[in-house]
């Protein structure tokens, strides 16, 4: 029981198949990778198989897929505006991927892929690289105008440019750390509250208090459910806002 009570234990990667080491790195197919592919499979099932009949009057699963699509399409359109249609697949993939991995983490004994900084950082990097590459491809050096907001007095410009550059560079960091920290902290809090229940029960008279952390852990579970969905939405929305810079760097 003591092993289960360690709140960090749940974040450990368990290699299912190991392909050996490359330098210091172990190349292994872990449960994390399995969760990722299961998520991809489920998303594909929902968006491809469930909509395969192309029904004019949709069934439940097709409705769900349509709702997700319309939700992301409208979010992207509102945040990134004209010409943002090309980025809908990217934002949709990111949203569904993060959403499912977050929700998988809520299943008892399951593993939260998004509680690993490297995963969230890579996803954020995909977003920022898309912004930078598309920005330069579409606008050339004009894209650098992003760092010089219009209407700033000349003497203030160097300072503003430095601030803008720092804020731009901190975007992938804030984007990835926000998701990672939320998932990590939530799961640790959940584990600790849940761990109090058996700990109190094992402590004799203190067992009377054990329903308290039980109720709390139920409440935290509900909160974490909300956080799981909300963080996926925040990730998608911020992605759209950053993509807006790539589309319209002038303003």
């Amino acid at each position, binding site marked *: 029981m*003591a092993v289960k009570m360690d709140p960090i234990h749940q974040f450990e990667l368990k290699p299912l198949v190991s392909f050996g080491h490359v330098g210091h*790195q172990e190349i292994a197919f872990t449960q*994390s990778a399995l969760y990722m592919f299961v998520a991809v499979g489920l998303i594909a099932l929902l968006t*491809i198989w469930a909509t395969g009949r192309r029904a004019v009057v949709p069934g439940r699963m*097709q409705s769900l897929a349509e709702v997700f699509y319309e939700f992301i399409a409208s979010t992207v359109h509102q945040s990134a505006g004209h010409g943002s249609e090309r980025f809908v*697949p990217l934002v*949709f993939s990111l949203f569904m991927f993060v959403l499912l991995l977050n929700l998988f983490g809520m299943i008892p004994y399951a593993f939260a892929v998004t509680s690993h900084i490297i995963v969230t950082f890579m996803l954020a990097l995909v977003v920022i690289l898309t912004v930078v590459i598309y920005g330069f491809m579409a606008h050339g050096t004009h894209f650098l105008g992003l760092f010089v907001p219009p209407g700033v007095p000349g003497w203030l410009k160097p300072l503003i440019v430095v601030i803008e550059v720092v804020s731009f560079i901190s975007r992938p960091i804030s984007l990835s750390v926000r998701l990672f920290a939320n998932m990590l902290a939530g799961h640790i809090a959940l584990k600790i509250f849940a761990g109090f229940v058996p*700990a109190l029960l094992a402590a004799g008279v203190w067992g009377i208090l054990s329903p308290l952390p039980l109720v709390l852990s139920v409440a935290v579970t509900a909160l974490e459910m909300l956080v799981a969905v909300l963080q996926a939405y925040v990730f998608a929305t911020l992605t759209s806002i950053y993509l807006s810079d790539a589309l319209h760097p002038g303003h």
Partner: protein
Amino acid sequence: MAQPHPPAAPHEGLIHEPATEHGGGFPPFESSTFAAQVLWLALAFGLLYYLMAKVALPQIAGILHDRQGRLAGDLDEASRMKSEADAARDSYERSLKEAQDKAKGIAQATRAQLAAEADTRRKTLEGELAAKIGESETLIRSRTATAMGSVREVAADAATAIVERLTGQAPDRAAVETAYDRTQTAH
């Protein structure tokens, strides 16, 4: 954060020992797992992006587009049918009005024609009647004249006979007639 409560502490060393073998101790920061995670993430997310961009989203967008098109088409069809129905009603009303007008016209024309015919017939009839009346009057006048002529003769004869009986002598015919005429004009 790695210290939840004292009872777990003695066991922590046991759990973290295999982890420290890789260097970090805190799984999310164990850099030895990064390459594998990046690899699988790239494969999984790449696959997901490919499926979404090439298959899933075009399909869903197609469904939504079809539905919108279908709805717009149905609405168009409905409004087209409505305008057709309106046009049909208008033309029906127009033809009804035309028919009514025509019927009214025919009735009026017939009435006028009948009235005219009756008028002419009445006029011819009146003419004929007037002619007959005229004829009859002429006839009556000539008959009266004839009758009156006969009466003069009869009266003259009678007067002659009476005078002849009374006096035994036949009077002069001319004198009798003059006397008769005198009585006639005296009236």
